[in-house]
């Protein structure tokens, strides 16, 4: 056994984590507040839709995914006080007005014949944007100072990928005609445009780029994003 008193490097040679990160405490808290709001809206919508879809397999998946996103919201809500935000509800807000419009449009379909539209909104637009924003955050925040956020992001991303795959497979099994392909793509395009306006889950800069096309995003959000 090695001599226990012999000095060793405090950071193991295989540990390549770095101190610097793109986000300061405030920026991290702002993003996480946006995530909390968006995850809340998603689990509420999934829960509400359960009663409206006739397909039994879809009903069960929505119920299961509802909980997963509630758990994500809970993780983020608990993280906020650790980022000096002692009133987590204050930061639990949408990134901007365009994000509110996106959620309203996504949750609009209610009729039992609109399962495709419901799933398209969640699994082809909303969740892919969560995956993008979370991946950017995980890859750019300080690997040492913000380790608790990274740990949550890893758990959550695993869920997001699993749900994305399940939702996509449900959609592929539901879309049986060229007309239904058109329905799905038309709805996706409509929602995608609203999401473009919002700039992503945490507003412009959600994935590090500032789209110049972002029309309704707030200037404050643009300045505070991770792309600076």
């Amino acid at each position, binding site marked *: 056994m090695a001599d226990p008193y012999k000095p060793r490097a405090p950071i193991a040679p295989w540990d390549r984590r770095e101190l610097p990160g793109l986000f300061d405490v405030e920026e991290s808290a702002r993003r996480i507040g946006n995530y909390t709001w968006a995850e809340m809206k998603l*689990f*509420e919508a999934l*829960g509400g839709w359960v009663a409206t879809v*006739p397909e039994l397999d879809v009903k069960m998946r929505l119920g*299961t995914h*509802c*909980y997963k996103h509630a758990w994500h919201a809970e993780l983020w809500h608990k993280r906020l006080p650790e980022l000096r935000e002692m009133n987590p509800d204050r930061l639990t*807000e949408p990134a901007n007005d365009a994000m509110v419009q996106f959620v309203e449009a996504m*949750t609009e379909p209610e009729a*039992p014949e609109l399962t495709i539209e419901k799933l398209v909104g969640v699994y082809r637009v909303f969740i892919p944007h969560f995956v993008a924003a979370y991946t950017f955050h995980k890859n750019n925040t300080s690997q040492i100072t913000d380790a608790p956020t990274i740990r949550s992001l890893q758990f959550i991303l695993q869920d997001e990928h699993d749900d994305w795959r399940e939702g996509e497979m449900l959609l592929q099994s539901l879309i049986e005609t060229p007309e239904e392909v058109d329905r799905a793509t038309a709805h996706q395009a409509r929602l995608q445009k609203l999401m473009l306006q919002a700039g992503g889950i945490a507003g412009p800069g959600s994935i590090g780029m500032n789209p110049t096309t972002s029309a309704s995003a707030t200037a404050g959000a643009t300045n505070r994003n991770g792309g600076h």
Partner: protein
Amino acid sequence: MRTYFPVEELARDERFSKVNMRERMADPRTLAGDSATTTRKSRGNNNRLVPSRRDATDAARALMHGIFVGEIQALEGAGRTCHDFAVSNVPGTGPSGADSDPTTGNTVPFALKLDMARQAWDEARHVEISVKLSDWMGTEIGQFAENTVLFEAACSTDPVLRLAGVNRALEGLAIDVFTTMKDFGDLAGDPYLEFCEDWMLADEVTHVKMGSDWLRKVTENDPDRRKKALDFQNVVDKLFSYGGTRSDSEESPIGLARRFRELAGFSDAEVADIAAVSLAALDERKSSVAKMRDQAVTEMADQLGTA
């Protein structure tokens, strides 16, 4: 999507057919159906669901299908509670971006919503379990009709009434049902059934406890609201004691699972109340059966006399 979803619009595929509680209970294949009455004589006064009942196969399958559709509605109800109410202290999370329900002013704590989402997941698993168990027992989806009283109890605009009606009354009934089915599996030598029922029973105890805890917390400073909720719970308990299907008496197909109800947060007095309501419902059914029998005897005698 609307806030508050009407029970008439619950979405189902074409295999399902909806009936009211009376029609459902009148199905001769169910626990309390005609066969339960007509075979009672051969079992003395014992009507409990046990494998030795002559109608055990049909009755157990009917009950399992009832559990299956009940779990679907419980899933739908928990999901709606996630959706229908704003979170206290989080502005704009209510219907149409309001801070609370514009008509009732109701909100719920964030943690309550999280519990309801957890319950939605549990109920989704229960649907998966019960659909597989139904298949195991040789039943097809839609072979028995569905009544939607459970979801109706989840339609209140007051979240506290939903907790009382669904989590305490109906999930409480589920504790009784799962205990009976678990024992049925044990007696029938069906470890698959017993195993699954035991797992679902564990979840149901958690859901009832959740309802008990939240009811207490949310109405801590509002005794009137608490009384209204408990009154509603009594109504639902009475409704689901229809025909005395569930009581302490051996004459009821389903027993009252006192031990598990205690674990779930029911006080002794509450369990005693449910036992009394259930027994009264059983007596009511027995007296109405006796009345019908007397009437039939009289009519037959009249007809024979006429002939």
